């Protein structure tokens, strides 16, 4: 029984990453109508930027949490301005193919320079060590990841669903012409939104750097699962992706306990089942 609680907690930790990443995807899909396949590559860039900040500039983890998302977010905004904006109004497929191509290029470049086995990034001193919870040993850093990502997820949800800025944003996706008539610069808003989604991916990258190796393919390994999360949660639904992210982390953790061989596929089995029963995803609206 103890072991089971431990698995639940570990699942929640992984779920934090799924939630953060799928949240960014959901924001981008909901507002820009782009299936952002480059998300994994941008998550990886977040981790690499954190590594460079520390290695070359001596800038520590805490600053990296702030700076890396901004740097990668700016990179994302450049992508949006120079490439993605031309796809407005076209079928989803074009966005998917373009971002997939971008992801392959970015990963290829990083792999060419840094190899595949990765670079070490140490846990910051303040978060080292762990505590004995009785049923398991919880590394302090992992506890921090859960709490931090929960706060970020809820803040993002609040920003988009409950504030005036979020209302503009949602209105702009429904009817850009009308919103523009009110004097709001819609293209700039779209660019900033993409930057926000990308920043969330980079933030998850920084969070994961001390736990996983900083590797060029770290995003590629994760992105398919995250897409499954988004599909199960319902494309574009913010709360749906947050809840599904955490829930799938837990389900995956339990699978690792009961039948580890299936732990890589359980998410997809769920995805198939959900799509068969409810094609729009658990909380998705019909298109």
């Amino acid at each position, binding site marked *: 029984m103890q072991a089971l609680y431990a698995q639940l907690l570990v699942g929640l930790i992984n779920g934090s990453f799924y939630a953060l990443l799928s949240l960014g995807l959901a924001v981008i899909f909901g507002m820009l109508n782009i299936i952002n396949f480059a998300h994994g590559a941008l998550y990886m860039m977040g981790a690499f930027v954190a590594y460079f900040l520390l290695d070359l500039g001596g800038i520590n983890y805490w600053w990296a949490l702030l700076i890396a998302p901004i740097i990668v977010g700016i990179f994302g905004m450049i992508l949006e301005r120079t490439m993605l904006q031309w796809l407005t109004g076209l079928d989803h497929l074009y966005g998917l193919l373009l971002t997939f191509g971008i992801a392959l290029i970015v990963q290829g470049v990083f792999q060419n320079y840094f190899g595949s086995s990765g670079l070490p990034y140490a846990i910051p001193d303040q978060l080292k060590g*762990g505590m004995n919870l009785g049923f398991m*040993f919880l590394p302090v850093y992992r506890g921090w990841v859960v709490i931090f990502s929960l706060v970020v997820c809820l803040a993002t949800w609040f920003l988009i669903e409950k504030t005036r800025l979020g209302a503009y944003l949602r209105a702009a996706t429904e009817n850009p012409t009308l919103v523009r008539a009110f004097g709001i610069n819609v293209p700039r808003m779209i660019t900033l939104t993409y930057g926000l989604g990308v920043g969330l991916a980079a933030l998850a990258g920084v969070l994961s750097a001390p*736990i996983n190796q900083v*590797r060029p*393919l770290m995003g590629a390994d994760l992105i398919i699962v995250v897409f499954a999360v988004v599909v199960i949660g319902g494309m574009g639904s913010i709360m749906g992706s947050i809840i599904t992210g955490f829930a799938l982390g837990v389900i995956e953790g339990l699978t690792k306990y009961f039948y580890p061989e299936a732990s890589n596929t359980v998410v997809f089995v769920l995805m198939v089942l959900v799509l068969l029963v409810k094609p729009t995803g658990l909380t998705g609206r019909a298109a």
Partner: protein
Amino acid sequence: MKTRSIASFLLTTALTFAAAGVASAQDKTVKIGALSDQSGLYADLGGPGSTLAAQMAAEDSGLTAKGWKIDIVSGDHQNKPDIGTAIARQWFDVDKVDVIVDVPNSGVALAVNNVVKEKNGVYINSGAATSDLTNAQCSPNTVHWTYDTYMLAHTTGQALVKAGGDTWFFLTADYAFGAALERDTTAVITANGGKVVGGVKHPLNTPDFSSFLLQAQASKAKIIGLANAGGDTTNSIKQAAEFGIVKGGQKLAALLLFLTDVKAIGLETAQGLNFTETFYWDMNDQTRAFSKRFAERMKNNAPPTMVQAGVYAGLRHYFKALESLGGNPHDGAKVVEKMKSMPTQDELFGKGEIQPNGRTIHNAYLFEVKKPSESKGPWDFYKLVGTVPGDQAFTPLSESKCALLKK
């Protein structure tokens, strides 16, 4: 009219003799296929470095100066047996490749083993670990150069059991290699009075090991055996440190650890780990000299891993065999037979031999990862703990199940 027919007769005769002459003189062309994981979790320990090692072996053989023509092609098997065999087939059928080298990932290696035998090519495997290559699935066309699961189990495994680690829990990569390593190590543990109390099989290329590590922790086993490799091993070790496993009194056994893995983990976390390799760049003047030349040509100036060193040494021996045959007969079994008949001797692995089952025998070394304070340079990672002579490290012929031995 008459002169013309005489001329044509002479010409035809001359051509016939010329053609016969070419056929009888030995063919001096060789084509090498370096088949590896070029972009996945094993790319740094083999990959482009293995292709470079093959290139250097060809240059250092001195055969080109004697009129030989050596070509090298490389391929990416992506850790998928079907892709690996497809490349191997195309290489033999279309590109007329003579010898396939490297092939890390035991699943791919065993599949390619069958293709090479069927096409009567030469297979010098350096990257794969499974001892089945020279045991149950041995082939007259295969030489297994660098290391195998039997050797890893009988060096690292045995040393740890003898040092008091008598209860084990396995974290095993769920494919041919993990299964073979767990099987061979389990045999050593039980033979030495130890016990395996549990284990978990994880999918290849798993980013998160926390669930598995928690199970290992709960098992209370003294030793947690890592029957995995490359990125999987580095992630397990790093995350084990995070969960306080070693601090809690359990010991990690990295049954297979490469130079590039230690680099990726960092000495801070990796220090004190015991493991076995058959080659380390900083062993002696000869290995240092070679490694220097190698690193200068590598993208990140990395010295060779044991897998890459094995590709080099295996090919050097192959070239020696070809030279003593006086040319390339394009008959894999014949060349391998010649390779087995000659003792091996090179600057990287020292003296050795190739047994009738295809297993190359040379020394194995027990290493310990240095503390950060002991390391003097960017690749100064290992402390030599002990040397195991080849005849004790590898499967004794009396225990081998290889069909080639039954005559």
